[in-house]
């Protein structure tokens, strides 16, 4: 369904008014929109640029919201939800590819995601990462959130700190520990 056909304004209003589910209903369309813009940008610039995922997500939401600006609470919600969405998308793709390749575990970044300069290391087993992240969220939900934001929307450490209203240095240390912890778990 093209985004113009859904009640974006209504869903957004509900979301801004506190109905958290309405953003979830919107996100599949947001993803489609992200993709559309990304492909357009890439084509217009003949592949000569790297798409900043943060900027892309911002663009889409600014577009959806019009001139209204997001307050910090909504920004946080937006980015954490977008991160979840991107995570879901990436992992679903990885699983599908794995199935196609019959067991080949290497994740190949594709189309616009390739251009998105997400800080996920190459050759990461995404489904395994997904499970490890779930486990981390059990132990330290905020740490998992930092990873999710960094990995799946490319938000910089400093921006994560701002979004989660944390000390930047703390975010940095949590980020370092989270990756060590995830590696340890994935290596096991």
């Amino acid at each position: 369904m093209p985004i113009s056909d859904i009640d974006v304004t209504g869903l957004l209003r509900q979301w801004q008014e506190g109905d958290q589910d309405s953003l979830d209903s919107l996100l599949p369309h947001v993803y489609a929109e992200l993709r559309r813009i990304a492909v357009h940008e890439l084509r217009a610039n003949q592949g000569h640029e790297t798409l900043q995922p943060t900027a892309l997500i911002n663009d889409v939401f600014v577009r959806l919201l019009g001139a209204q600006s997001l307050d910090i609470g909504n920004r946080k919600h937006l980015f954490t939800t977008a991160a979840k969405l991107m995570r879901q998308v990436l992992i679903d793709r990885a699983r599908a590819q794995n199935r196609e390749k019959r067991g080949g575990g290497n994740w190949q970044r594709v189309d616009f995601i390739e251009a998105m300069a997400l800080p996920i290391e190459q050759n990461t087993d995404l489904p395994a990462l997904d499970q490890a992240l779930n486990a981390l969220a059990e132990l330290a939900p905020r740490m998992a959130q930092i990873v999710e934001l960094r990995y799946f929307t490319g938000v910089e450490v400093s921006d994560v700190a701002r979004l989660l209203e944390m000390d930047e240095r703390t975010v940095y240390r949590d980020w370092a520990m989270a990756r060590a912890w995830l590696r340890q778990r994935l290596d096991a």
Partner: protein
Amino acid sequence: MSSRGDQREAFDSLRMEFHVVIELPAEHREAHLEALQRTDADLHGRLCELLSHAMETDLTRVPAEAATVVFGPFKLLHSIGRGGMGEVFLAERCSGGFEQQVALKRVRYETLSPVLVERFLRERQLLARLSHPNIARLIDGGVSEDGQPWLAMEFVDGQRITDWAIAKQLDVPARVALLRQVAAAVAFAHSHLIVHRDIKPANILVGLDSEPKLLDFGIAKLLDDSEVDATQTGARALTVRYAAPEQISGERTTTATDVYALGVLMFELISGHSPYALADSGRQSWSQSALTETPQSLSHAAALPRARSNRLGDLDRIVQKALAKVPHERYPSVLALNDDLADWLADRALRSGIGGTRARTRQLLKQHRWALSLVAGVMLALAIGLLVALHEARIAERQTRSAQANLSAMLGVLGGANRRDYLGREPAASEFLEMAAQRLQRDYGDDPALIHEALGEIAHGLVNLGHEVEAEPILVAALEATERMPDSDPNQQLQLLKLLVITQDVQEARARAEASATRILGLAAQGNPDLVLDTLSTAAGILSKHGLFNRCDELFNYADTLLARAQPMQPAAEENFWRQRGWVAWRAFDLDSAIIHLSRSEALIVAHPAEFSALRKAETQLLLADVELARNNPDAAQVHLLAGQPAFEREYAEDHPERAPLHVQWAKLALLHQHPADALREADSALRILEKHHDALPGDRLAALWIRAESLAKMDDCAAAVLTASNAQTDSNTNSQMQLLPRDLKLAAISELAIKQRCAPTTTP
């Protein structure tokens, strides 16, 4: 198996220890871990296991991707951000014996050929010389052993300029002032032939000292020029949102590229929005918008209160000029942009001349005070009058355009009146007006209505300034324009003809004045009666100066028929008519008619005192005094003289040429009262004044000379009397500016007679 709560608790302890260890300098870690082993062996084991999985770079406060931690003399501390060109780290100097923190940029290129390495390093030297308080200095740069190019820059601990402005709740002027600092730094770099090419909020940080600092100066160019690896150029992400059209289309980038980016920055800094509404709302890509979308209005985007919109209008013009799609339509330099910003801040008109008319007028009036001392009343009156007209809601569109064109032509001329054009001299107001007329004819030649109106105004200004000669061709051009107008209005032509004939009072314009009078008569039947009468009497006044009294009669005869039919005239118009008629009769030395006409003028003044200025009332009184003097009525003359004198004394300085006729009249009166010594003194006063003003009032100078001669004769100083008389004779023969009229001849005759009577026996050849 422990409970989930226990697991969390264990994880929290692990986290706390990890945070402690990672903050410790590497050399102290071992001791800390040993201590931990003694107190909590389990935690120590888990921590070591975790640390063994931690990335080397994290442990040296460097994120995952960094394999190398030492670049030249610098050691990486931790990542402080990622830009399009690569990741940036806080690093510190680890050699050289002094502490220095830098922002170290690992440029995202894989390998460099030796030639390119050399070029990269050479360019880097140029950049390192760029030293400016608002530019983060390039401290060092190089290529690591594994081929990784890097640059070390002054570390700026600050906030993005846009965030800082919001956090500090800066008002618009404060934001403009901030931008000026940035622009000044950019201009400085340009003067060192370095273009930034990637100006954006992320590259301008404001530190605790409130000083903005530009980062990454010249880096974009440095990298492009190095052409590090043709296949890798795509790796450098251009920030499309701030990219100029020529950058997007891959054309040459110049200083104009930075002007554009400053425009985008300025727009965002002031309004909080991008100039491109379509891209901002995601309806099209940034690059598409930069290439094709017209930037939105700043005042609209900023949504500031209406009261400020006037000032914002100029700011909008500045930003729009900076954002022009074609580089050469932007400000020619960042300095020019900065000049306009300075003018805006100082509430002056913009130096580039793109500001609104109101501000421009204000500015030009201020800037050209020296010129305006000459232009004074005329220009001010014109400019202000036009501005008023512009704001008159009812004014027809054509008139508005005319007024605007006129004003802009004049302001353009004034604005162009810089030292270069007028080196070493002060231009006369008439020069401004003449240039304005030329400019109008050049720029609006295809619009006769506009030319007619604008040139008419300018010619009026010139006439008021006493530059009739210069006004004449402008009026002719204006008249030509009216003839090209499809709906030519005879009244408009009559008004121009009235001005034209006024300019034709010099001797050599005699035939043209006559032709003008003919044209006036030709139009008289179609014109508004008041205007026709006014024009007829004005023309007659000029014709009488040429001694064309028969033509004057012709005009007045027509006027009489019109007067018989027409509605009563406005008092001021009617008085002018009779006064002009009085002048004509006086010049013709038709004293009885002169008294009749001037009495009607005087009666109108008495009946409508509020309609007339003091000077105009005085003019009639002095004219009456002249006629009464000629009629040998000293008492009546004295009454008029005393009535008219105060206004002249108030209005004109002692040595102003307009004061000369007063002296001449007092001299005549003294002669009538048989006081030749007084007459001589007054005549000499008149001559002294007129001596300083060569071209002024030749008729009065001649009168003063004849009276001087007569006075001297009556004082029996015949030698001096004869000499003065011969001077007067020479003067009247050689002065091409004046036509000798019956009045002048009569005066000369009286004087010569007196000399003959008193001095004939002693006259020597």
